[in-house]
């Protein structure tokens, strides 16, 4: 219905911008625009995306403020390489180790995907830690970004749990016994420790079923948790806006201007006395007493 007149309103931001005024649009372009309009009318997707992309952020942002995005991209890389590994991996104690051998030695580029997944996990930890350090040293966790920090801290913990659960999946001696130690430590925690350990191990003993447990945690539970918390984290960040570096030139300039104004004011007042700035709440506007009030 409205698709026919959509091309007439001189919209910008679509691929057809350059050709609009010169020639009639190609049918493909027209159909594409119509589709975008159709979806936007029913979801606000384009409007939302435009708001997200073209909203203003402080002019001076530091290179250190790219680390959060980098962590997110590394998570994406882990997801992609992980999906490829999952196509060949067999979560069964009898064949897990062998399937890793197949991936490493036989599958085309398999060694690369596995090596990238392993190195990527370390890289992600490093980048998330650096991101946290930059937030700390920028004071960017302060009002109003406290909850952004809390969701971020949970992301750090979840990322470490990814490392812990993924380590066991290769089913080699080193990882197996390290994980035995880790679950023993869990079991020794007061109160809930034994229960959590039983859930992790799929029983009171570390055994074959433990592998399936860790597989499910590593492939489903924790990634879903990370994706959810990244979504919340990003929502907070776009809602509040990214913090300006505390040493921005703009803030120094604002401060200097303020001081200059102050000095000027001091110079204008006789005998070097400072004018007393008007502080405190403005005097409340008094409503005239009305007859109905009684007293």
């Amino acid at each position: 219905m409205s698709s026919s007149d959509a091309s007439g309103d001189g919209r910008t931001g679509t691929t057809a911008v350059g050709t609009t005024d010169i020639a009639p649009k190609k049918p493909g372009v027209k159909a594409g625009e119509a589709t975008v309009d159709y979806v936007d009318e029913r979801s606000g997707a384009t409007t939302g995306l435009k708001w997200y992309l073209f909203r203003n952020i402080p002019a001076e942002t530091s290179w250190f403020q790219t680390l959060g995005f980098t962590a997110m991209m590394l998570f994406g890389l882990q997801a992609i390489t992980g999906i490829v590994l999952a196509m060949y991996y067999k979560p069964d104690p009898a064949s897990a180790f062998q399937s890793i051998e197949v991936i490493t030695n036989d599958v085309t580029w398999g060694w690369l995907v596995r090596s990238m997944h392993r190195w990527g996990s370390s890289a992600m930890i490093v980048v998330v830690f650096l991101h946290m350090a930059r937030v700390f040293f920028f004071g960017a966790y302060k009002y109003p970004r406290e909850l952004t920090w809390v969701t971020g801290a949970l992301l750090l913990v979840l990322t470490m749990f990814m490392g812990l659960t993924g380590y066991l999946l290769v089913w080699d001696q080193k990882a197996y016994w390290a994980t035995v130690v880790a679950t023993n430590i869990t079991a020794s925690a007061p109160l809930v420790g034994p229960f959590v350990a039983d859930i992790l191990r799929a029983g009171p003993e570390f055994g074959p079923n433990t592998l399936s447990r860790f597989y499910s945690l590593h492939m489903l539970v924790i990634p879903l948790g990370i994706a959810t918390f990244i979504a919340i984290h990003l929502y907070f960040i776009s809602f509040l806006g990214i913090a300006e570096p505390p040493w921005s030139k703009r803030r120094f300039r604002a401060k200097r201007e303020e001081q200059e104004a102050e000095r000027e004011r001091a110079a204008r007042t006789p005998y070097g006395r400072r004018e007393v700035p008007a502080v405190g709440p403005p005097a409340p506007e008094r409503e005239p007493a009305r007859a109905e009030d009684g007293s």
Partner: protein
Amino acid sequence: MNRGQKEAYKRDYAQAKKEGKPFFPYAVYKDLIVATLAIGFVIGLAVWQRIPIGEPVNPATTDFVPRPEWYFFFLFELLRIFKGQGALTPVIMATFIVPNVLLVLLLVTPFIDRGPERRIWRRPIALFSGIAVVFLLAYLTHLGSEAPAGTEEVQLENLDPQGQAGLDLFLANGCLACHTVAGVGAPGPGPGLTDEGERGRGIEYQIEHLRDPQSTTPGSSMPAFASLTDQELEDLAVFLEGLGTKYTAP
């Protein structure tokens, strides 16, 4: 921050935004450059150092070196520091108290440090504690990364046949991965056992501990060696009880 400081911050930030630039492309291009470099770096590492294949799991023999990923080394190192030898070093410090205190501190940082100042050189406490945490983590990670000593010969004097059998079991079961005897083995996470006999635990206790370390030492992270036969357990226990009393390092 009190109300006025919050208002001042909001006003200042609104001003910064008004004088600001659009997210796209001014921030996005930086993000893309750094993220691309990072991904390229990961690919480079993967090509340069392929991840090797380890040894298949064998739950029966424990001649292993239990090593976690490097980013858990700092926790692993805590196990070496708090290994339940003295009243001040209970195992629970390493397994529960310290990690959870760290976790809680991490979560509540913004609620502890609520001042309006954001410039790091005006926040001496934050500056100091931030640097201290980074150095401490780096130091613990470094200590935890030190590989356990190689498999040198364990030299003990006065070994009788049962002691020799115990020593063989001790070597075959990878106890050296967590313990030292006569200067050989890894200095942690378990305590040194060169003088274990002098602690006067008794054979019964040792067998019980090997079968189920948690039963005698709540919170122990030592794996259970329940698959050993009664005879093997006894040989091991006799060997352990003789360490430092009968079987001494030369």
